[in-house]
């Protein structure tokens, strides 16, 4: 009997937890559903008051307007290329930078750490950065989007702290077995650091997927611009088109177009995120708690 009782209270607790979590999930999902619905609804529904969670009538003109733009496909390509390149580069540089900094025997370690940390608090600002990029001859090249942010101090410190926590004995034993530094880094440290590297990859990936301001500043050629900037154009251009004075000018339903744009831009991230989320949570926790 007593076991039954505890079982019952357990069940109540479980039900309670499930109810709260379900509610939380619903609260998070409903605004998203509203956006999905409105993105495929005609103007009269978009302009009406109230909640729209399930589409009742369909009008895909918003999506048509977004996909009609030829630039969107090249922009998609540019963004994917940019993200892949940047993530790869950031991973390599961050890892190679963090490892030495985690070693106590590195000469002037405190100085080098301070040197890196300094960049977290001070930057040249927009205009000096622009001049720098120009003088380096990176204008209008995809490298102007990747190189300036290739190493994030914050992520470097997370990785440094993570590696710092790996027992030194592991390396010592490897050394005794005759492994050199490179071998140790490659075969011992790297496999153990995978969770934190996944975090770095995800942070960097999301950042580069969403970035547009640098593309606006440094890239002149429309064909080299990134997705977010092109989408931004489509949205704002829709506003302008509606304001044209000429007779016979068709009115673009800007609201559904904006929402369609939103869906188009977040869909890829949305598809990838569930599979990477566990690394995200794990890596961030490890980095922050032990740091």
């Amino acid at each position, binding site marked *: 009997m007593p076991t039954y009782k505890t079982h019952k209270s357990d069940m109540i607790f479980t039900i309670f937890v499930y109810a709260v979590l379900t509610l939380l999930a619903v609260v998070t999902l409903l605004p998203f559903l509203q956006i999905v619905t409105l993105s495929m609804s*005609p103007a009269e529904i978009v*302009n009406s008051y109230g909640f729209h969670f399930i589409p009742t009538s369909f009008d895909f003109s918003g999506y048509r307007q977004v996909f009609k733009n030829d630039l969107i496909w090249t922009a998609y390509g540019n963004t994917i290329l940019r993200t892949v390149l940047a993530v790869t580069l950031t991973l390599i540089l961050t890892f190679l930078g963090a490892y030495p900094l985690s070693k106590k025997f590195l000469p002037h370690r405190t100085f080098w750490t*301070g040197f890196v940390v300094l960049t977290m608090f001070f930057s040249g600002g927009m205009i000096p950065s*622009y001049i720098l990029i120009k003088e380096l001859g990176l204008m209008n090249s995809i490298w102007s989007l990747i190189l300036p942010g290739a190493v994030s101090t914050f992520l470097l410190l997370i990785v440094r702290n993570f590696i710092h926590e790996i027992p030194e004995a592991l390396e010592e034993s490897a050394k005794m077995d005759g492994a050199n530094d490179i071998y140790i880094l490659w075969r011992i440290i790297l496999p153990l650091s995978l969770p934190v590297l996944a975090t770095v990859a995800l942070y960097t990936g999301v950042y580069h997927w969403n970035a547009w301001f640098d593309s606006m500043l440094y890239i002149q*050629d429309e064909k080299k611009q990134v997705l977010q900037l092109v989408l931004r154009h489509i949205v704002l251009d829709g506003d302008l088109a509606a304001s044209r004075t000429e*007779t*016979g000018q068709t009115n673009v339903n*800007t609201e559904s177009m904006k929402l369609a744009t939103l869906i188009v831009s977040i869909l890829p991230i949305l598809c990838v995120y569930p599979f990477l989320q566990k690394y995200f949570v794990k890596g961030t926790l490890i980095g922050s708690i032990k740091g």
Partner: protein
Amino acid sequence: MTKKRKIVKPSASVLLCCVIAAGMLAACSSNNNGNSGTSDSSTPAALAGNGDNNQSTNKEDPVTIDWLAYNSFGQMTPGNTIEKMVSEKFNAKFNIWYIDSSNWVDALNVKLAGGEMPDVLLVKPDFNTISKYVDNGVLAPISEDTIRQFAPTYAKLINQYDLWNTVKYDGQIYALPAININGDYPTALIWREDWLKKVGITKIPQTLQEFEEALTKIRNNDPDGNGKKDTYGLSDYALPAILGAFGYPGISDFKNAGKGIVNLDYIQKNGKIQLAAIQPEMKDALTLLSKWYKEGLIDPEFITSENTGGYWADSNAFYNNRIALTGKGMYYHWRNQMNANAPDDLGGGQYQNLLKAQPNAEIAFGTPPVGPDGKSGTIKWGVNAPPVGITTKGAKDPRKVETILQMAEASITDYDYYNTTFRGVEGEDWKEENGNYINLNPKITSADATKKGISVFHMIESPDFNKKFDAFNYQFADSVKTEGYAPFPAPTVDSFTKYAGDLTKLTDDAYLKIILGEASPDSFDDFVKKFEANGGAQIEKDVNEAYNKMVGK
């Protein structure tokens, strides 16, 4: 460890000093560039005098102009028909600049600060930017004689609209004013005519009393027939029109003011420039609005605006049977008369949106209410469009200045040139039928139009050509034209830039409190005192001085 740290700290601060010093050096050197630019700029005006010779010597190498005198919605494809036509006509080559139109000011400022400059550019967002550009050595003065020599018709047109004052700084002309003729048409005031009929009003209200009567009936007599008392008279878009019955509306856009976007207009009263927000007649206006609010004529949600999403001229409250009177949009947004020569014409965009939401709705263009002293009007934008400036780099070559002026002149005098540069190639982008203009690509986006070279080279919109070309549209516009208030185009002063943001917040706060009944209308006097003490008086003093200096008093 502690010892080590002590060593690190100074080295970090030394580094920091280096960084700051480097930054300052960079800033200084760019300033120097700017200054040298301005000092050079005195020459072109002098050089331009002997520019007559250049006109005939067309065999010369074409002049190359770095061009940014257009709204760069997209990147123009070089070598298009329009560019070729313009290049041949003026013996010029164009290096078309592309600045992200959605973030124009920031994107351009970075380039200017980085030492890159076009030869000619659109001064955005409006003429107030001129003073900043002049101080930073971006814009060069253009002598009035040069303008009158190469663009006489254009100069006359600007005289006619009295716009030279908007481009002057320290008594010199720094840009070519542009005209947006739609700014001469006041914003529309739109009634739900079917509702008015339903509550027994057959004549569109004209005086304040008639407005009050109509709005009260709409509030109480259930015009939408759903058995609930859920209709209001008006929301925020029509408020300036009500304020307008007493004088220039102290707030011309409640939504923007609420968001903290500067919303202080100048008026000219008794020969002096004053700020509209603190005029004594606004006290009477607010007294009335506070009474209307108490009686439920004003939608309580007006604070968060009747436009809850979408294009700015959309009124969701109007579409959803909540209010009977809206404003802010233009005649072309609400046009409910169809062009018989254009079979697929469905009317203005906002009119179409209303019909989609309320298929049986009927609208009527109203007139702003006439107040006790006979005043009335809605806000109009004013005809000044973003002017075109010639940079210190462009002004170094008098041929560039000449070519630019000649292009401006052609936009005003040559109908075919204007139509081609502004609307595109005839037969490809538009055609004319029975004196009516028909757009052959009605769904073209601004970006695609720019790509083809449309609206890149015209520089100045000609009011006469616009009206000639789009006759039906402007006939309709004239038929619904009402009284309007346009802000006085006063020169920019530093104190305005400094205080206007806070003063807008102060004004919005005071106005809303009185309307909502949280403060008595008498608190308006305190507000005026506070307004003047917090920079309002300073602005008025400075702006009058600057204006008198500008016009040479």
